[in-house]
């Protein structure tokens, strides 16, 4: 008997959980580290970081199969999951229940943010090569506008929260943490990780604004 | 047999331990069962049993024996129960426990992973298997899960939220089915069955609210078949538990162990003393159990403690604040000790009284607990073993052919008083035996229920529907819920812990006056959907009629035996005198003479002027009544 394979439900749910962590979560960590390099200036950022990545062979395949498709599945199936629940954060004011609600809220928020974010950078770059040539300046100009900065800050925090909380619940889903104490302990670990990633991300956002501009005199 | 399918069609009424065991046994024999319950199956009163279930496993190094279990049960019941069924029950108890264990019941364990056993009242050996403090709940769920599995296999069908109203008898008087009411749509419908098993539990609600019983333990179903001609036995024997929490809605049980672990029962010497209990100095407290029974003190048996509390409150007027309550005090005990040993009841008391027994004495009063009496059921004695003959269709058959009874609604195992932790045993065991008996009955049945004439079903359905319509049209001034309350007060006062013939005569008169008032009923609602007042009104009327049986049976028995106590006829055991001494031997002779007159089963049958009481002898083949009950 192998009904868990014949019935796709379980595998789809677990795939959704897994993809959220690897590669999407892993990519987010990498992405935040990558952008935290902004504080070392346009040259370093554009040439050493972005440039190196753009020079990778099969980059498009990586982007497609390690980022775009997993993200599309995670987002699409996530919307299906959201449709199967009804959060009552006010009636049950317990932390985990609020997080349940926030996870879904942040998921929807992230979909909207990512549409803008990917559209303004990666997709726009396809049409305007100067964007990918000097991503640093592109971002610096964009983030200089308070509204865009606020949007990016929100997107960053949503993403970090979604990952950290997703990690905590994935540990329950996969059976890593069973007892309430284990879940609480691991919850703190995830919260710490989330703070760390948030700090890294904010550091990166600010880096675009405070680091020396292209060719500028460091 | 009905349906043209293999096997017969049986109706079991009641989803407690007895009914579910009967269902399992009947299904195991290849028959189909329709299980009727007033509510979702698994919510029955069996779930309330806390302490445990007796079975001799002899795993505690005390050389316990089945024989001793039999003797304890017989003597605990003051010899009033027929001995063959007791023998068979005690012999089968270990096997029953093994079966429960296989079902997954979470019995408490010894360090070696075996079943643990503890000591209970009225016995000397650790013989009680238990599952924490929720043994009844665990046993009930064990069988409930098995029945649910049979349900998925199509062998059992449940009719939940259906109330049994009456049986249907054919022209030969054989039970061929029932009429029941859907408690939602109020539809009254007949159901055919080759046999019917009644497992409808106790009747503590007749004493409401001073009862430890669930609100659905009304005895109405047993009353209905009694009114249709089934004999009712030993109705006067009703156990009052001495220590129940006070409550306007219900009195919740506080286990005997509270006294066993050192709890003291007392009242202020001045009933008008309004001080908080712990501010009352020792000298101004009356520890009446310790005063009156110096050797046993607070650990006197249930019936003695109940009577003492009754005397203090009702006769001496010394209840706290002059009311029906005394203190059960644990505050002098070491807190850690009490918490470990009595944790379960502490939490019930905290939850329901909003007070902590560790810091405030509990307020308690005796409450109606368990009906030893019930529908009369037959048994076939096996001369070879002295027990019941296995598989006999006579076992647990009522006086109506095709109608069986098991569980608390029968009278078979407890005589005049029930031993603690024997009720879960008798409920389970009798359910299984009744199921096996039904299977034998079906194999000898020539014509099934399908052959019964439709006219008897139609007539009974019409009669029951007519009762409903009459009640729905009623426009008097008598509220059924108030009538229930008055019934409880009346029974608690006059057919309660202590009885006298004048009071019982009064009770009989009051009960018929109460019955008359149903002519002027005001139902209070006319809804034709889920009308709970209608169902309740019907139940209360049948409770009043059953109460009449209890009062008449109590009136007829002029002696003290077990839970039935008439002080005017008390033969007191001489204090400080033991077997062999002249005073004790003289007492023994008087006791035996009393047995010669009164050691007999009370039988009630409906008559034109109320219950007709007569008696039948008790089978004493195993243990002759030579030893009076003596817990000294």
């Amino acid at each position: 008997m192998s009904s868990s394979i014949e019935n796709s439900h379980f595998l789809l749910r677990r795939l959704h959980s897994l993809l959220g962590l690897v590669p999407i979560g892993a990519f987010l960590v990498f992405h935040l580290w990558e952008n935290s390099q902004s504080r070392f200036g346009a040259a370093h950022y554009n040439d050493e970081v972005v440039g190196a990545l753009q020079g990778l062979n099969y980059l498009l395949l990586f982007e497609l199969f390690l980022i775009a498709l997993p993200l599309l599945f995670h987002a699409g199936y996530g919307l299906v999951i959201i449709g199967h629940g009804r959060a009552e954060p006010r009636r049950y004011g317990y932390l985990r229940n609020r997080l349940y609600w926030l996870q879904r809220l942040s998921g929807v928020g992230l979909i909207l943010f990512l549409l803008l974010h990917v559209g303004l950078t990666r997709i726009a770059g396809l049409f305007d090569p100067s964007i990918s040539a000097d991503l640093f300046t592109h971002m610096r100009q964009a983030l200089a506008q308070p509204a865009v900065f606020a949007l990016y800050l929100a997107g960053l925090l949503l993403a970090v929260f979604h990952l950290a909380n997703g990690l905590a619940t994935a540990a329950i889903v996969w059976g890593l943490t069973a007892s309430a104490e284990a879940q609480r302990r691991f919850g703190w670990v995830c919260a710490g990780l989330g703070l760390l990633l948030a700090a890294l991300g904010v550091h990166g956002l600010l880096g675009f604004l405070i680091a020396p501009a292209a060719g500028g005199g460091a | 047999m009905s349906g043209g399918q293999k096997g017969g069609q049986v109706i079991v009424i009641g989803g407690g331990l007895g009914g579910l065991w009967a269902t399992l046994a009947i299904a195991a024999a290849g028959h189909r069962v329709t299980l009727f319950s007033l509510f979702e199956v698994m919510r029955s009163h069996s779930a309330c049993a806390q302490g445990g279930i007796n079975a001799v496993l002899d795993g505690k190094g005390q050389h316990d024996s089945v024989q001793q279990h039999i003797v304890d049960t017989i003597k605990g019941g003051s010899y009033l129960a027929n001995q063959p069924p007791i023998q068979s029950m005690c012999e089968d108890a270990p096997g029953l426990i093994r079966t429960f264990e296989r079902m997954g019941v979470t019995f408490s364990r010894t360090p070696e992973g075996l079943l643990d056993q503890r000591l209970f009242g009225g016995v000397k050996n650790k013989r009680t298997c238990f599952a924490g403090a929720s043994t009844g709940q665990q046993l009930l769920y064990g069988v409930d899960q098995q029945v649910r599995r049979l349900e998925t296999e199509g062998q059992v069908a449940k009719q939940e939220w259906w109330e049994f109203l009456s049986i249907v008898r054919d022209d030969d008087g054989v039970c061929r089915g029932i009429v029941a009411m859907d408690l939602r749509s109020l539809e009254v419908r007949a159901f055919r069955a080759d046999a019917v098993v009644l497992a409808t539990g106790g009747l503590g609600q007749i004493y409401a609210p001073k009862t430890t019983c669930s609100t659905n333990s009304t005895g109405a179903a047993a009353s209905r078949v009694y009114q249709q001609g089934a004999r009712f036995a030993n109705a006067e024997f009703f156990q009052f538990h001495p220590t129940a929490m006070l409550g306007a809605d219900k009195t919740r049980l506080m286990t005997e162990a509270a006294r066993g672990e050192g709890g003291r029962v007392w009242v202020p010497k001045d009933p008008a003393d309004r001080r908080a209990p712990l501010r009352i100095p020792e000298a101004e407290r009356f520890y009446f159990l310790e005063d009156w029974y110096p050797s046993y003190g607070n650990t006197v048996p249930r019936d003695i403690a109940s009577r003492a509390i009754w005397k203090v409150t009702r006769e001496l007027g010394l209840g706290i604040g002059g009311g029906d309550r005394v203190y059960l005090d644990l505050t002098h005990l070491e807190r850690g000790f009490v918490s470990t040993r009595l944790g379960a009841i502490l939490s019930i008391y905290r939850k329901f009284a909003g007070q902590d027994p560790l810091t405030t004495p509990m307020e308690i009063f005796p409450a109606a607990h368990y009906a030893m009496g019930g529908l009369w059921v037959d048994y076939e004695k096996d001369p070879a073993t002295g027990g019941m003959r296995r598989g006999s269709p006579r076992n647990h058959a009522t006086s109506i052919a095709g109608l069986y009874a098991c569980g608390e609604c029968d009278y078979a195992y407890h005589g005049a008083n029930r031993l603690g932790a024997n009720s879960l045993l008798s409920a389970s065991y009798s359910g299984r035996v009744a199921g096996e008996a039904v299977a034998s009955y079906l194999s000898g049945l020539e014509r099934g229920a399908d052959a019964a004439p439709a006219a008897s079903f139609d007539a009974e359905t019409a009669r029951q529907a007519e009762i409903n319509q009459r009640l729905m049209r009623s426009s008097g001034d008598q509220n059924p819920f108030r009538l229930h309350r008055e019934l409880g007060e009346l029974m608690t006062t006059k057919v309660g812990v202590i009885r006298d013939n004048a009071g019982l005569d009064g009770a009989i008169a009051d009960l018929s006056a109460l019955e008359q008032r149903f002519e002027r009923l005001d139902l209070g609602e006319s809804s034709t959907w889920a009308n709970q007042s209608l169902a309740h009104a019907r139940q209360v009327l049948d409770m009043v009629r059953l109460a009449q049986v209890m009062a008449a049976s109590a009136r007829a028995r002029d002696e003290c035996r077990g839970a039935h106590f008439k002080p005017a006829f008390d033969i007191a055991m001489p204090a400080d005198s033991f077997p062999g001494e002249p005073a004790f031997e003289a007492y023994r002779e008087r006791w035996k003479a009393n047995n010669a007159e009164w050691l007999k089963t009370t039988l009630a049958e409906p008559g034109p002027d109320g219950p007709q009481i007569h008696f039948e002898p008790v089978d004493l083949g195993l243990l002759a009544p030579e030893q009076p009950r003596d817990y000294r």
Partner: protein
Amino acid sequence: MQARMPSESPACETVELQIRRQDGPTTKPYWQTFVCPVRPGANVVSLLMDLREHCVTQDGTRVDPVAFEHNCMEEVCGACAMLINGSPRPACSALIAELEAPIRLEPLPKFPVVRDLMVDRAALFAHLKRVKAWIKLDGPWDVHERAPRVSPKEWQANYLYSRCMSCGCCMAACPQFGPQFGSQFGPEASFVGPAPLAQVRLMNAHPTGRYDKAERLHAIMADGGLSDCGNAQNCVRVCPKAIPLTTAIGELGRETTLQAFKDLFGPH
């Protein structure tokens, strides 16, 4: 809980009850307000019982008694669960003295209303069947052999789950459970809910119940099974018996992970 002397208990003589009523499964709900006398130690069930005798609303209109379920009155049968001031809990153990007035009573959500505060919890029992919450016996007869031993430690863990009385509070509080989710694909597709999941944990721990472990795990790996749990964990917060439902869910997460590996890579 704080101890309170009877003499110190607040002298609240009446309390306002706001009850959401519904005459039948398909009719519209409406609210009625009652002012009820409160006796010491009164609970929600005792108030509703008293109300049956004299069911008059605050404005003096005589109305039908409120339909509700109750039986044991000591929080062990599970019948009387309802929404009290917004929280699902057994009404018998909800003491009036400890509730904020006015007290709002509503039927247990997520289950179809029968009438007033009565609901039909058939879904819960259907789900118990779905997950095969029983030990497979050859028959209810004595086989003259006891079940295998269980260590006291294991017993202690199991006992927590065996006290579940199917009151439905955990299901009512679960954001993933409800007739609206998946029921268009039949009851088999809607989320099985915390209580039945805990029973899977219990049955799989029994020495012979283990024989059917894979079957039960497969049942909760299907549509509406364990993976529909959203880990909101309201269940464990509202459970009146403090059953560690989320621990069971975590353990089952581990078991299903292993089961999936077995299913994928063998041995089956």
